[in-house]
C-alpha cells in the first residue's frame, strides 16, 4: 500500500464524525450504543494505522486495539444489559424519556 497515512486518518475521522452525530441524535438507546461502537471502531482504525506507519515492527498500536476491543465488548454487554432492564421497567428505551438526571 502506498497511500499516505492521512487518507486512513481521514477515513477514520469521517467515521468518527458519523458515530458522534448518530450518538447525539438517535432516540433509541440501542442505536446510540451502535453509534458508539462506530466511534470506537474509528479509533481502532487510527491505532492500527499508526501501528502500520510508525512502528510496524512492534505492533504497539495493535496491542491498544486489543484493549479497546476488550473494553468495547464489555461495554456492549453491560450497556445492553442496562438497556434490557430499562426496557423491562419502562416498556421503552427512548432516551428522550429517560431523563431522571433532570434538574
Amino acid at each position, binding site marked *: 500500500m502506498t497511500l*499516505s497515512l492521512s487518507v*486512513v486518518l481521514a477515513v477514520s*475521522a*469521517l467515521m468518527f*464524525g458519523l458515530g458522534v452525530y448518530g450518538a447525539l441524535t438517535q432516540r433509541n438507546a440501542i442505536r446510540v450504543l*451502535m453509534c458508539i*461502537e462506530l466511534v470506537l*471502531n474509528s479509533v481502532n482504525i487510527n491505532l*492500527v494505522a499508526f501501528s502500520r*506507519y510508525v512502528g510496524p515492527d512492534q505492533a504497539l498500536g495493535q496491542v491498544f486495539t486489543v484493549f479497546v476491543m476488550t473494553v468495547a465488548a464489555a461495554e456492549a454487554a453491560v450497556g445492553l444489559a442496562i438497556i434490557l432492564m430499562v426496557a423491562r421497567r419502562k416498556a421503552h428505551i427512548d432516551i428522550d424519556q429517560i431523563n431522571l438526571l433532570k434538574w
Partner: protein
Amino acid sequence: MTVTDWVFLAVAAVTLFSAYRVVVSRKIMHAALWLGLTFFGVAGIFLLLGADFLAAAQVLVYVGAVTTIIIFGIMLSTPEELRGPSPEAGSDAASSAAPTRRSFLPLVTAIGFAAVMVALVNRGEWPSPPGSVSTDTPRLLGEALFTRFVIPFEVASVVLLVALVGAIALALKEESGQ
C-alpha cells in the same frame, strides 16, 4: 496508486457508506445489519493495514459477538420497533419531534469535528508507509501482550470478567423481581 490502494479506497467507501446507513436507517434491524457490514469493512481495513490477526479478531468479536448481541438486544427490548416505524410516525426517525439537540447543532458539531480533523490530518507531516511489514503479527502481538503489557492485559481480563458478572447480575435481578 497500486491495486491495493484502490482496494483500500473501495473498502473504506463501503465502510463509510454502511456507517452512514447505520445512522440513518429507519429500521433498527437494518441499522444493526449495516453496523455488521461496517465492522466487516473495518476488518478489511485492518487486513489491508497488515493487521491480519486483528482483522480476524475484529470479525470474531464485533461481527460475531457484538452485532449478534445488539440484534438480540433489539429483539428483546423493542419488539414493536422490529418492524420499523409505523407508517404514521413521520418520515424519518432521525428528524422526529426533536428538542433543541435534534436541531442543526449535532450536525454542525459532527461535521465540524470531521472537517477539522481532516484539515489537521492534511496539514501534518506523516511518515511514508514502510516497505515491508512483519507478517508474524500474532507473535508480535502475543509477545507485547504478555511481556510489556501484561498488567494492562490482566486488568482487561478483569474488566471483562466484571462486565460478564455485571451483565448477568443486571439481567438476573430483574428476573427475580418479576
